[in-house]
Each structure stands twice: as C-alpha cells, then as structure tokens.
C-alpha cells in the first residue's frame, strides 16, 4: 500500500502547513477576546501576546477616593513621546480630583478621564484586546480602569526619525529642497501641504501577515481614473495576506508591476514630493510605503523617467534644451559603444579617412577584438561604479586613483585597450547617469551589453535589430492600462507638448490623455500679453519721479 501512505503523508503535510498560513495578525487565544474587568487578566494576556518583551511597559496607578481603583497604563518604550506622555496622560491621572465624587465607580472614573481629564489630542475607546495590541505598536498608549470592559487609547506617538532633508539622489538647482523621509505620516503631510484641497484622498492599507506595513494610496478625486484605483487595489489585495511584510517600495513594485520580466521599470519611484504632486495633478496615483523615502507613481510612461523638476523650474527654452540633452544621452548610453564596435569592425568605410587611420594606429597593438574590448571595459566600469557606491568613504580616493590611473591611463599605455575605447566608455558612463530616475539608468546599462554583442556579430544591422526589438517591447508595454511609450508609441499630439521638448506652461491646455477623463486643464488664452495702456502708465509714473 504505497500510494495510500503517500497520500496520507501528503495530506498530513498539507494539514501541518495550514496553521502556518493562517497564523497571521497575532491571532493567539487572548487577542481575539474582549477586555476583561480584572486588570490581572488583561496584564497577563498582553504580556503573553508580546512574549514578555523588554520594551513593553505596563504600569499600574491607583486613583479614586480611597486610592483603591487601579489603572493600567500600557505602552511601548521608544515609540512614544515621553514628555508628551507625562504631561497629557500621567499627570492628569495622578492629579485625579477625587473629592467631588464621594466613592466613584470604575465607569464614572473612566468617563471622567475620557471626557475631561486627559489632555491628549486624540483619544479613542476600544473594547477588544486586539485593538490595544495593534495600536500600542503604532505608538499609542492604552489605559484600562479596573472594573471596566473598555480601554482608552491616547495618541502620544513620538519616535526618532530622520528630519525632512534634501533629496539625496534627485537634486535640483531651483526646485524645492524637501525630500521624503522614512515616516509615512510626515510624507503625507508633505503632500497635503502642497495640495490644499479636500479632494486629495489618502486611502490606507496594511500589508503583510507579520510586518503590518502601512501603505497609502493617494490621488485627487475627480482627476484620477477610478478604474486604475480598482486595478491597484486588486493587485495589492492579491498579496495582502500572503507576503510576510513589505519593507521597501521596490518590493511592492515587484509584486504589482505589469511586466515582471521587462528590463524597463513600469512603476516610477521618487523621493521628491514635488514630482508626486505633479503626477497627482495629472490624474495619476501615488503609493507611499512606510519605512522608505522612495515612493511610487502609477501609471507612468517612459518619458516621465527622463523628466526632472529642473525642466519646469527654469524657463522653457532651457527646460526643452535639458530634455533634448537627456534623450540624446539616453541614446548615447544605449548605443555608443556598440556603434564604435560596429564601425571599427564592419563598416570602416563610413568614417572619414583620417579618423580611420588614427583609430587603426591606436588599435594596432591591442590584443583583443573591438567587441571584447568594449565588453571588458564596460564591465570594468560597472565594477568601479558599484565599488564607488559600496566602499567606506575613507577609501574613496584610493578607488578613484586606481580607477583613473591604473585602469584608465596605464591600460592605454600598456596597449591593453585603445584610447578611443576609454573615451567611449567614459562618455557612455556619464551619459547613463544623466537620467533623473536611477531605475531607468539600470535598464539602459543592462540593455547595452546585448547590443554590444549584436554589434560585434552583425554590425549596424545588429544594432538596428536590437533597437527594433527594444522598440517592439516598449510599444507593447503598459503601465496600469496606460501605453508605456505614449506619446511616441501611440502618437498623442497634445501630450507631445511635454515630451521631447517642453512647451511653456500656458500652452498646456489638456492633461495627459490616458490618465484622466477630466482632460481640460486650462483655457487656451493664457499667453501673457502686456497691455499697452498699462505699460504707458508705468512709464508715466516713472517719469513723474
């Protein structure tokens, strides 16, 4: 009877595995129950739920006419603001005016505390132990008066966090210098301060069966497309009770993105509140994840990754110039090494004769074929880049000396690589860092290698084929229903105003076509025209002086 035993084993396994799956949201015996009127019982069940953790504080205070009624105060050390706590919770309790009530019942004390005595800003009444457990983890403090079946939760949240400081990886010359930090409430307040309108909606979800991470979906009602919201919620709901926790926005991105195997990111991540505000005004959605300064924007297009706040803060000529510069460097970063490889190994006739001779002279002693040389140098550069990020700051100069002198100059002098190749690799590297969003730079850097191989084997035909393959992929991508290559893929004339070049603000009549139904942004006649009469009056006034 081999098979039945096998089945039985399998069945046992499945049975065993079930409790693990259902073991979410601290569902021990005590937590689902209601608050007991005996303080001892409550104390024990809370201690048990936390496994008697060191930072859990349970304090008993006696109040009442004869100091005979116990009040249990529960909080977690480090999550609360100590000064605020002693001022608004401990002091009102210890100075409880018991002379007016001769022999107060526990319920009377509870109500008195709730209605007038406690001076905290935010106070709620709960009946379940589970609520207490969840809330004190957020930094609330719980009060239970002996003899009552309810508890008071006081908001005394205050924990150490990084102050709002300048964004580290996305800086701007003239834009605002505020960046997100790791605390979700601070981040939402940064957005609220910029959009002073009740239509700015923040929906909060908690994710994970252990971590209980907070996630806020933010949008402007009336601008954002409700179908996209539904889609976001569906995708998040799928992972809600399955994952252990969501610690990073990158983790959430991988769970909910459209094309899991694409090198291109279909969700934009940013640490700039102004970028998210701009996206919200276009009818997009922001997803904020607690514990990370990088927050997500959906749906997004390729063009958004090439956009920086700088394009809008400077006047539109300069903004357009920057845009064009970035698109050109996007292409350079993607294809320059492969064009060099293709031309030097297949199509020498395409270069002017002098240049061909100079290149040939340089390449004379180089032992490797151009494609291997390019590949090697690109990988060396990637190693240098990675080392530059990971190394301790004190060894920084050492790395740059090794990078510049040993690998650059000495390798050329030793004849291992040609000088032209180092120029090409350097230019490519610089061009790949010009993208304002780091994640699109990664895509370009990864796609560069297959194109180098194609160029080394098939010349310009290979490069064209590689670019076409990327183009096919880009046009078939969608981000939450919005074509990723819009406004170039499907050409949207009104959206082209904010793509390769940037039109002045008064020229944007419409919002992006695919993200919102509320498409009219402003009227057409906003181009500034100084009035002749006013001008003359000003001149006249000056003349008087």
């Amino acid at each position: 009877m081999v098979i039945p035993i096998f089945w039985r084993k399998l069945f046992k396994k499945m049975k065993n595995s079930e409790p693990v799956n259902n073991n979410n949201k601290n569902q021990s015996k005590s937590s689902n129950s209601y608050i007991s009127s005996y303080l001892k019982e409550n104390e024990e069940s809370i201690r048990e739920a936390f496994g008697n953790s060191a930072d859990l504080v349970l304090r008993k205070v006696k109040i009442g006419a004869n100091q005979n009624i116990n009040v249990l105060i529960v909080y977690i050390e480090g999550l609360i603001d100590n000064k605020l706590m002693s001022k608004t919770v401990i002091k009102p309790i210890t100075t409880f005016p018991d002379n007016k009530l001769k022999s107060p019942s526990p319920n009377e004390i509870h109500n008195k505390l709730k209605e007038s005595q406690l001076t905290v800003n935010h106070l709620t009444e709960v009946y379940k132990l589970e609520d207490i457990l969840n809330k004190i983890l957020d930094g609330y403090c719980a009060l239970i008066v002996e003899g009552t079946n309810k508890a008071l939760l006081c908001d005394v949240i205050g924990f150490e966090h990084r102050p709002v400081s300048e964004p580290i990886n996305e800086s701007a010359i003239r834009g605002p210098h505020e960046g997100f930090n790791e605390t979700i409430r601070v981040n939402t307040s940064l957005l609220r301060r910029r959009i002073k309108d009740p239509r700015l909606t923040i929906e909060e979800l908690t994710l994970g069966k252990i971590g209980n991470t907070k996630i806020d979906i933010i949008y402007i009602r009336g601008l954002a497309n409700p179908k996209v919201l539904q889609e976001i919620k569906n995708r998040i709901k799928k992972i809600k009770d399955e994952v252990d926790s969501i610690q990073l926005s990158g983790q959430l991105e991988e769970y909910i993105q459209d094309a899991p195997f694409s090198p291109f990111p279909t969700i934009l991540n940013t640490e700039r509140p102004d970028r998210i505000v701009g996206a919200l005004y276009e009818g997009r959605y922001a997803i904020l994840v607690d514990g990370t300064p990088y927050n997500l924007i959906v749906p997004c297009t390729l063009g958004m990754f090439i956009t920086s706040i700088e394009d809008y803060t400077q006047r539109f000529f300069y903004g357009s110039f920057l845009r064009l510069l970035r698109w050109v460097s996007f292409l350079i970063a993607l294809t320059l090494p492969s064009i060099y490889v293709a031309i030097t190994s297949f199509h020498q006739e395409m270069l002017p004769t002098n240049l061909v001779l100079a290149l040939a002279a340089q390449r004379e002693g180089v032992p490797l074929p151009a494609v291997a040389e390019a590949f090697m140098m690109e990988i060396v550069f990637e190693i240098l880049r990675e080392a530059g990020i990971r190394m301790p700051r004190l060894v920084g100069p050492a790395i740059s000396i090794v990078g510049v002198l040993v690998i650059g100059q000495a390798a050329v002098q030793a004849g291992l690589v040609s000088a032209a190749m180092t120029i090409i690799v350097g230019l490519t590297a610089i061009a790949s860092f010009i993208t304002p969003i780091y994640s699109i730079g990664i895509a370009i850097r990864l796609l560069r290698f297959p194109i180098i191989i194609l160029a080394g084997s098939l010349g310009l035909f290979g490069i064209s084929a590689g670019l076409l393959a990327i183009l096919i992929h880009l046009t078939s991508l969608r981000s939450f229903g919005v074509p990723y290559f819009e406004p170039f893929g499907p050409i949207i004339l009104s959206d082209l105003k904010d793509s390769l070049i940037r039109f002045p603000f008064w020229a944007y009549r419409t919002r992006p076509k695919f993200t919102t139904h509320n498409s009219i942004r402003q009227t057409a006649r906003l181009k500034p025209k100084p009035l002749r009469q006013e001008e003359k009056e000003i001149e006249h006034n000056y003349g008087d002086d």
Partner: protein
Amino acid sequence: MLEHGKISARQLFFILVLIRFVPVMLLCTYSYTLKTVQIAWLNDVLGVALSLLYLYLFVRLCKGFKDKTIIEYLESNLGPVFGKIIGIILVIHFFIIAASDARDMGETFTTTIMPETPIIVFILIIVFLGANAARNGLEVIARISEFTVPIILLFLFITISLNYKFIDVKNLKPFYFPQGFSELVQPTGSILSLYIGEFIIVGMIFPYLNKMQKCSKSVILATLFTGVLFVILCIDMIVIFGPTFKTLSIPILSLAKLIFIANFIERIEGIVILSWVLGSAIKIALFLWATAVGTGQILKLKSYQPLIYPLGALATVNSILNYERAADFINFFTGPWIVYSSTLSISLLIILYIAQALDKQKVKS
C-alpha cells in the same frame, strides 16, 4: 474577433505609408522596368492615379464589412466553399508579400554592406523580430510604424535636400513623349501592382479601426502622400543621376552616399540601414499578422498567436526557396508579379461587388 486591439485612422495612414516606403528604399525593382529614364516620373503619376481609382472603389466596398474582415465577409456572403477558396488565395498572397519582403531586405544587405554574411542570417533575424511584433497584435504594429515613419521621413528629407550640389537639370532632357503605349505599361504596372496588391491589407485592418468612416480618407491620403513623395524622389534621382539611374540597384543608398557637406555631414548610410531594418520588419510583421489572422478566421480558431511563429518559419524558408539569386527576385517583380498582383486585385474587386450584391439581397429578403 481574433484581434482585440483597435487602431486609429491616423495609425492606418502611417502603416500604409510605411508599406509603400519599404520597396522604394530596398532593392528597387521599379528602376529595372524603365526603358527611358526621363519620363520615370510620368509613370509614377499614372500609377498613383490608377491606384487611387482602384483604392477608392475598394474602400467603398470595405464599408459593407462592418465588424468583419474581408475573409469573414466573403465567406459569409459567398458560401463556405467559394468564400474559403478566395480566403486561402488572399492569405497566400499576404504570405508571399511577407516572404518576398524578407528576401528583399536580405538581398539588400548582402549586395551592399555585408557581402560575406549568409543571407539567411538577416532573414532569420528580421522575420523573428517581425513575428515578435505581430504576436503582440495590430496595436503594437501600428504604434511602431507611427514612431518609425517620422524617422524615415526625416531621413528622406535629408537625402533629398542635402544633395542640391549634384542637381543638374539638363538631365531631364531630352524630354520626349513615350514611343507608343507599350513603353508605359510595364513601369506603370509596377507602381500600380505594388499599390493595389499591398493595400488590399486594408480589408484585413478595416474592422479594427476605431472610426471606420475615416478609413477612406486615410487610405486616399496615404496614397497621395506617398505618390507625391515618390514623384519628387524620382525627379531628384533623374536630375542627379541622369541615365545611370536605371542601373542603380538601390538608388536611395547611392543618393545617401553622395551627401558630403563641409567635411562633416557625410556617409549617413547608418540611418539608411536603420530605416531598412525598421521598415521591412514592420512590413513583415503586418503581413504575417494578416496571414495569421486570415488563417485563423478560415479555420475558425480561437486565437491567432500560436500561428505566428510557425508562419514566420515558413516565410523564412519560402523566401530562401522562392528565388535562387537576386536576379530571380528582380525578374519576378518586374514581370509575373505585375500580372499576378493586378489580376488578383481587380478580380477581388469584382468578387467583392458580387458579394455586396448578395449581401443586399439577403438583407432585403
């Protein structure tokens, strides 16, 4: 419906323009049909005018399709047997165009820039890319052509405008009227057969347009636009190359190679190669798509995507086996193709008239 995407009339315009660009940019069979170079533009004008007439009638008939493709429409109105036979002929027609386009591109590469590489490499890669695009559906094909056409147009503009140094108007002379009708037939037929033989694909795209009433406008505009452009290009070639125009296998490449300005702007063949690859891959994608959707509709399949890669493989084999060498390819497109394609398109028009008459009768009864 096998295809779920919808495209706009503007996208149809771009697709059609791209289809017509490809045979002009690649190994050009048209110049081989010319007897006298000086009146090449006249053949252009005649060919375009006749194609306009044909396409006007064809698109008017298309409007009766409603949500059916030409293959479904013929089958529902002419009965399963006769309708299926014509459907199969059409599908084979699309398939031949895809295969010969792949061969055209391969020959172009092997005769010009990479003579040592075997032709199968180019054909294999380009058909694979085309099949990949076709598998993603009509929407993707439309988007790529929308993105590509401006690039190719820019390149054409550069090649036409930057060669001003070499223009010699005397090359247009001696201007004489053709000696009899026969001299006009072959070149005009070459233009006409390419237009009408390939633009039949509108019958497959028609039900997937989001605004069907705009279809005729974009077909006519695409024909006129490409027609005018080719007349300009043709005159440009004549005034630059003179009688040698006839002997050039890829006139556009020769034109691009001439560009030499201020020791700086020169040898822009790189863009030519890019537009060859982009253009022909998208054309192959479109005709493979039409073949797959047509086959799917004849066989009443639920999805056409599984057919794409096998059809691509067949097209690769077909493109190799059909022609032994480049001369065969040129011979086919300067002779048999003209007769075959015009016969097919014109008889299709008559069959569509019959089908429409039957359709109207059905509605009445």
